[in-house]
């Protein structure tokens, strides 16, 4: 569970992305309890206030919720997680497609290459 940051973007924004990723990929399972802000901040070697800000935003978005007495939890709404996962996937694919277009590939070519690679066939 490593946290990596680039130096030119705000940390809280990167934290939001990385926590979201961990939720979507199942590192933080739906309904599971998150470590405390302090522990998370320590793990990521970031300022606790910044971590708090990122978590608050994710709560706002509905991926997390706080139970006053027991702490912070990932949403139990699996559909919501699935949707977030999808959204991330679409963002990644969009980026990929744009890169491929810049390389000069046509849509059909892209699709063929992908199918082949997924099927394990060497190009």
């Amino acid at each position, binding site marked *: 569970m490593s946290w990596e940051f680039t*130096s*030119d973007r705000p*940390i809280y924004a990167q934290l939001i992305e990385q926590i979201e990723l961990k939720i979507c990929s199942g590192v933080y399972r739906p309904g599971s309890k998150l470590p405390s802000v302090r522990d998370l901040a320590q793990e990521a*070697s970031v*300022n606790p*206030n*910044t971590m708090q800000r990122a978590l608050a935003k994710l709560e706002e978005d509905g991926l997390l919720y706080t139970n006053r007495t027991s702490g912070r939890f990932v949403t139990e709404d699996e559909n919501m997680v699935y949707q977030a996962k999808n959204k991330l996937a679409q963002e990644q694919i969009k980026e990929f497609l744009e890169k491929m277009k810049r390389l000069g590939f046509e849509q059909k070519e892209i699709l063929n290459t992908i199918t082949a690679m997924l099927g394990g066939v060497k190009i």
Partner: protein
Amino acid sequence: MNTVLECKDLVKYFGSTKALDRVNLNITQGRIVGLLGPNGSGKSTFIKICNDLLTATAGEILIGGLRPGVETKKFVSFLPEKNYLNDWMKVSQIVAFFKDFYSDFDSGKAFDMLNRLNIDPNSRLKTLSKGTKEKVQLVLVMSREARLYLLDEPIGGVDPAARDYILDTILRNYNENATVILSTHLISDIETILDDIIFLKEGQVVLTKTVDEIRDESGKSVDALFREVFKC
């Protein structure tokens, strides 16, 4: 929002050299603040005045609403750049010394940290290496439940692993009632743990922002911005 440190028009002259030039600051509780600037910018001078180790030429500093003195020393924990340990004591004795004079000192925590660092409490301070002495000093300072921690170049002369440990300790000790002000010129290592940044240039405050504000507004890391602002 409690103000833990208030600085009004602070001026400090050393003879005819102006070390601090009308510094104005307002630092709130629960923040980790980086006081950044090149050597000679006045960081150490500022921190020493906060600790009543230097007297200001003009202006004033209020810590928790009080002027630096005996009362503020009770809740301010200071880590100087220098090695200040006496050489005739053992590690356990200096822990006892701190416990004797500081009512907010937690010796259990201190021994815990020393243990984790593999420092034998029975060893004489005289026999420890420079790096180990610095770790002992850090342990002593962080074992206090202080309201303000002033760390002057805490990661300066230490190896990268020790650096990580120091930053980790600062984060682990964090609580919303405490404030940490650390001065350094090694910025990229500590950027992510800081809330607020103060750039000090030739005794003047040239910038006060949060880390994310800087990254948001300039698209650069604090380290990169620092290099720009303090270009030689």
